[in-house]
């Protein structure tokens, strides 16, 4: 009985995303005390995690990146009304400052050698948001930068509300016809969107690092384009395709196993 109820709770949370206990009480028709007892057991079993406090506590599936806020910010057709200071880096200096805090994840099992690569990958993607969009932001400048360690996995999400990869590259290579070709070109060919500079090896570096280890993955979405790399790339792709709208800018999610 308990196992069945917990499986049902897990299914509801998977389906609805972050869920409050009061919603589970309504949907399952059992007492708040019983719901809280199940939730405590599920947290202890590593099935779910809680976010927030008191009546605002939500539960979500453990091991997932929780992209709701990032996606709302990135996909909003109009200027986002919520720009959390802990996530939105309006200038490169703010982004660089927050990048330096990633040493914190060595406490969760991130090895020193891996830290150097994780920083370099995040640094390249984040700085690209500024390099390719200065003066071309749709509204909010900068990037969304969010990190989360859960169940032996480090998730990093970097998104922007810029011009998108296709518009950024079309000046350097007019043969690029669509979002998908633009993304593949960005990650696999040395080309610079900042014409006439002969550069553009940053995302190639990112792809090499992600594909160079077993427990790494990345997915990037810009407009209708979508690419993934690395053995865990499929996990990243699944997470960023849960949301139906296409981002005008770009959103990149990468996953690094801590085990």
């Amino acid at each position, binding site marked *: 009985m308990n196992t069945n109820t917990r499986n049902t709770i897990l299914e509801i949370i998977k389906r609805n995303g972050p869920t409050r206990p009061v919603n589970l009480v309504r949907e399952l028709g059992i007492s708040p005390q019983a719901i809280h007892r199940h939730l405590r057991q599920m947290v202890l079993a590593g099935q779910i995690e809680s976010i927030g406090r008191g009546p605002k506590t939500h539960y979500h599936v453990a091991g997932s990146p929780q992209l709701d806020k990032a996606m709302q910010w990135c996909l909003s057709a109009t200027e986002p009304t919520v720009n959390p200071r802990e996530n939105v880096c309006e200038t*490169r200096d703010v982004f660089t400052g927050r990048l330096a805090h990633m040493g914190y994840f060595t406490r969760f099992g991130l090895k020193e050698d*891996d830290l150097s690569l994780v920083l370099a990958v995040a640094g390249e993607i984040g700085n690209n948001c500024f390099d390719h969009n200065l003066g071309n932001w749709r509204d909010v400048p900068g990037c969304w930068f969010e990190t989360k360690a859960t169940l032996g996995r480090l998730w990093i999400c970097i998104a922007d509300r810029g011009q998108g990869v296709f518009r950024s590259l079309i000046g350097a290579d007019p043969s690029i016809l669509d979002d998908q070709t633009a993304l593949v070109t960005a990650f696999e060919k040395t080309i610079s969107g900042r014409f006439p500079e002969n550069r553009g090896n*940053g995302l190639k570096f990112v792809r090499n690092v992600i594909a160079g280890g077993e427990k790494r993955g990345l997915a990037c979405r810009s407009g209708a384009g979508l690419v993934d790399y690395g053995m865990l790339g499929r996990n990243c792709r699944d997470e960023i395709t849960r949301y139906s709208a296409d981002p005008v800018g770009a959103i990149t999610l990468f996953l690094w196993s801590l085990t």
Partner: protein
Amino acid sequence: MRVELKRFGTILMSRPAGREAAMAMKAYLRSAAGEPIELDFDGVISVGPSWLDEVLTALRLDYGSDRVTCLPTKNLSVIESLKVIGTQQLE
């Protein structure tokens, strides 16, 4: 002359920061006439290819490709950055 890159920070990212670091390095390198210029990564946590490319391009333009080299390091971000830039570190 050995250039200790940790003087410019322990996390070295972005082209603008690389450009600025290269300019600063040139001030120190004025007294190194004819000497080899060796980039020392000891004490650096992470380097991105954009930063490193800016530094190497600027220094090699002024001092020549043969004079500017990267000292051996086990830092994986440096090794991967050099691969993508197409430069080798000293054995």
